[in-house]
């Protein structure tokens, strides 16, 4: 069995509201999966179910083959979790926090001490090792929170919006760390609000909204699914925009903003047809670019129909 995490038909309801609707997802060892979705999509509910904090109403969860419903402590022994908010004992120092949680995960006293020292170094917290956590800055707490999660390496790592509020340096530290963990065979599930982060970090991206999986695949696959290629045109004058739209009127999904016009295309050769139409109307072009859609565009395209559905 290669899947470290296996969710099938996972369902969770809060009263009338369905937070998770038959979510299925597998994460093999050594893979980073990014969970994307707008606020309230069900990301945190999914994570809480996976980490034994919530009991699902339906479906199954397996973590290294263990079922949280019947073997919660075996599941807990194999997952490292960092929640959305730092979970630290504020009254004691970073070192004491690391030693405490390290010992709880089975380290002896001496080992825990040694390990705490290593983690403080690795997360650039050494100078604050003895300051009570209550006095630390937000970024330091966040890093310590991650350090505490990783103080004993476990085969599954779950991160709920780990880089929210981190400065670029700390974010890079975290990214490097996630890559290192994956490289040694850890299965990583991370939720994020930053599409760039998912693009950079995740081997696979899962988009969910309203508790349902909308897409599952690599960043490139998702981009291809959504629109293939984008032809981005910059007109020499914003006054021409309306005319350009007119000229491209019968092509699907054309968008315009200021002096910029974006045209989705199935194949790269289609660019000739686009340029021909504009030339036919005598509209000068300042710049042209053919690219894949950004993950932002994928995200909006995927989640927008759902948003409309609810506003109706």
């Amino acid at each position: 069995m290669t899947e470290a995490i296996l969710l099938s038909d996972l369902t969770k309801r809060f009263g009338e509201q369905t937070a998770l609707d038959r979510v299925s997802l597998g994460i093999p060892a050594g893979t980073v999966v990014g969970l994307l979705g707008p606020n309230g999509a069900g990301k945190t509910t999914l994570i809480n179910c996976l980490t034994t904090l919530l009991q699902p109403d339906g479906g199954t969860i397996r973590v290294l083959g263990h079922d949280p419903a019947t073997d919660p402590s075996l599941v807990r022994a194999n997952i490292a979790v960092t929640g959305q908010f730092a979970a630290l004992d504020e009254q004691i120092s970073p070192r004491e926090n690391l030693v405490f949680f390290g010992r709880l995960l089975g380290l002896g006293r001496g080992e825990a001490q040694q390990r705490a020292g290593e983690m403080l170094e690795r997360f650039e917290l050494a100078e604050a090792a003895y300051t009570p956590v209550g006095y630390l800055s937000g970024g330091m707490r966040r890093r310590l929170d991650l350090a505490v999660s990783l103080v004993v390496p476990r085969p599954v790592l779950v991160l709920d919006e780990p880089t929210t509020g981190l400065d670029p340096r700390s974010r890079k530290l975290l990214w490097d760390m996630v890559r290192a963990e994956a490289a040694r065979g850890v299965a990583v599930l991370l939720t994020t609000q930053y599409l760039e982060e998912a693009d950079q970090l995740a081997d696979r991206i899962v988009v969910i909204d309203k508790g349902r999986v909308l897409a599952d695949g690599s960043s490139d696959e998702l981009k291809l699914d959504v629109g293939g290629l984008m032809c981005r045109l910059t007109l020499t004058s914003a006054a021409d925009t309306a005319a350009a739209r007119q000229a491209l009127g019968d092509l699907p999904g054309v968008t315009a903003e200021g002096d910029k016009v974006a045209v989705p295309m199935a194949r790269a050769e289609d660019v000739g047809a686009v340029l021909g139409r504009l030339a036919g109307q005598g509209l000068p072009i300042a710049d042209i670019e053919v690219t894949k859609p950004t993950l932002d565009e994928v995200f909006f395209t995927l989640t927008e129909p759902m948003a409309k559905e609810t506003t109706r």
Partner: protein
Amino acid sequence: MSAMPGVVAPGAPVSPGRPAGRRHDFQVLFDRLRSRSFSRGGLVATVVQPLVFFAIFYCTFAGMLDERGIEFGRFVTPTVLVQALMFVAIAGATDLAADRSSGVFSRLLTSPVDMGAMGLAHLAVVALQGLLSSVAVVLAGLLAGFRFDHGVLAALGFVLFAVAFTVALSLATATIALRLRNLEALSAVLHLPYLPLLVLSTGFVEADLFPGWLQPVVRVSPVSGVIDTLRALSTTELTWSAALPGLAWVAGLLALFAWTTTVAFRKVAIR
């Protein structure tokens, strides 16, 4: 200690983990709470504060009680002790609430920690604090005329009973701390009842001095029962009729609140 997952070199593959077991978990959890309760702030709460109250009550009541022929040290020492134990229970619940709001509680719930060990460690530390407060108050009482009239066994019973009362109260406050999320509301709910419970008891004045309609309430109050048991085990006549109501109260409260705490904990832990 063969399969310790700690000393993995960076980059080495990670082996699956196993829970460390209840005894180990208890030890680690107990160590953390114990070191917190023996910190400076913790000792102020368990030792200094009761002594300050003892001195205050001595100054305010000794004169008046003396005029009625009651010896302060013998009469009020158990009352001050009960107050100190109430504070221990309140502080224990406040710590629990702090762990919940800081997220430590959730982290424990996602760690392979034995749930029973979590509860036991909490109660063990509370019992230790109760013991500490008892010793401090009894020593102060001895200076003010408090004595154990019935020998060593009764004195041990006195301390044991005090500790049992602390645990029973802490189970009650833990239930509240597990049910209430709002810290402000929690603080009010924890602090409001203690003063009426203490004052409307036989702790400071005999039941006869209360207005007639209140006397039955004062007589059956659990705090009166507990104080009377403590008195029976030390300075007053040691009879079953004096000691039994308090013992029954503590046994009943222990059973009741052990159950409510378990239910409340389950609700928080498994949703």
